């Protein structure tokens, strides 16, 4: 892999497309009230469906790798950018998803009033919690797109849900178990 390939990625995206990518993720940044992962369905819709820059399998793999590695879960966004346009893509997606929300956090942290009991703020969180839930379910649904037709994969999804809800085991072990089962039964 040459440096030019690293910077541009295999799609050779131009500045206009990179800017479009960045702006799309900036909008998602402000919508990510339940965390960045809630915006994954829209990332998939845009990157896989609308632009055709990556496949369903690449998308799900990206989220899986980011969850298996140490660090904030938001890094799945960097993997998306990397697939789409190398390092330039990483910059576009990460600046997009972090920029607007970080600036907002900076401003609110500095000048905001601490009024967690205000009725407007309570209505905001209470009103958006069901949406967060629906978006998380959407993310789960979208991530199963490449393997939904394989019963072993469906069993893995259900198993992961049950174990994760009922125990405090680290997600790292569940993902490791998924890798072993997958290598043996999902080839």
């Amino acid at each position, binding site marked *: 892999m040459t440096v030019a390939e690293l910077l541009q990625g295999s799609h050779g995206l131009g500045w206009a497309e990179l800017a479009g990518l960045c702006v799309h993720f900036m909008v998602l940044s402000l919508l990510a009230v339940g965390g960045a992962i809630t915006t994954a369905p829209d990332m998939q819709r845009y990157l896989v469906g609308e632009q055709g820059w990556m496949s369903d399998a690449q998308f799900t793999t990206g989220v899986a790798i980011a969850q298996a590695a140490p660090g904030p879960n938001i890094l799945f966004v960097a993997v998306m950018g990397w697939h789409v346009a190398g390092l330039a893509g990483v910059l576009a997606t990460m600046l997009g998803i972090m920029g607007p929300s970080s600036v907002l956090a900076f401003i609110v942290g500095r000048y905001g009033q601490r009024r967690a009991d205000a009725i407007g703020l309570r209505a905001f969180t209470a009103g958006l919690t069901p949406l967060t839930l629906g978006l998380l379910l959407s993310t789960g649904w979208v991530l199963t797109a490449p393997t939904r037709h394989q019963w072993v994969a469906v069993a893995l999804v259900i198993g992961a849900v049950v174990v994760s809800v009922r125990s405090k085991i680290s997600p790292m072990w569940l993902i490791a178990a998924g890798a072993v089962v997958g*290598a043996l039964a999902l080839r």
Partner: protein
Amino acid sequence: MSALPAQPAKGEAPLRRPASPAAMFRAFNRLALQGFGGVLPVAHRELVEHERWLSPQQFVELLTLGQVLPGPNIINIAVVLGDRFFGWRGALASCAGLLLLPMAIVLTLTTVYQHFADNPWVVGALRGMGAVAAGLIVATAIKLSRTLKSNPMGLPACLGLGAATWLMVGYLRWPMVGVVLGLGSLGMAWAWWRLRAQEREA
């Protein structure tokens, strides 16, 4: 915002200040590298128990702020905490500590994976990991659904809103902007109206 550090209750060790933005970079880097599948539990241990930059109460307040604001909670916490101690340099140092090394690791893993993308064992392993990742996210939704019982909108309205969101974004694949602005304003208006009614009754 009150000035930090505030004095802790009697019997607790006094709070400290980070020595420099570089110290914040190192602390956030350390907690990020320990966080598999979520950094927040590690953040509590490092920032409250180990470094003692925050009291438990201050940590909860910061976490609430990070959750109300859009964007990744832990990044919001890093921005606000970094800014409180060292202004924008602290915010940048904390975020960089959180992201730089873990990002290098994730991208290295991706490149290694791409190298072995033709190997059926590797492809199978990644499919299994993807299925588990999907399950973990669904489990998060289930854990979150337990909080709906105390939601002022009531359980049926909450379930309706959640199901509608899944239908539009997950199944019909409509753009998220319109769905979140539309259903979100509906939910917030309904919650506000219910909270007002509850206050009048009380």
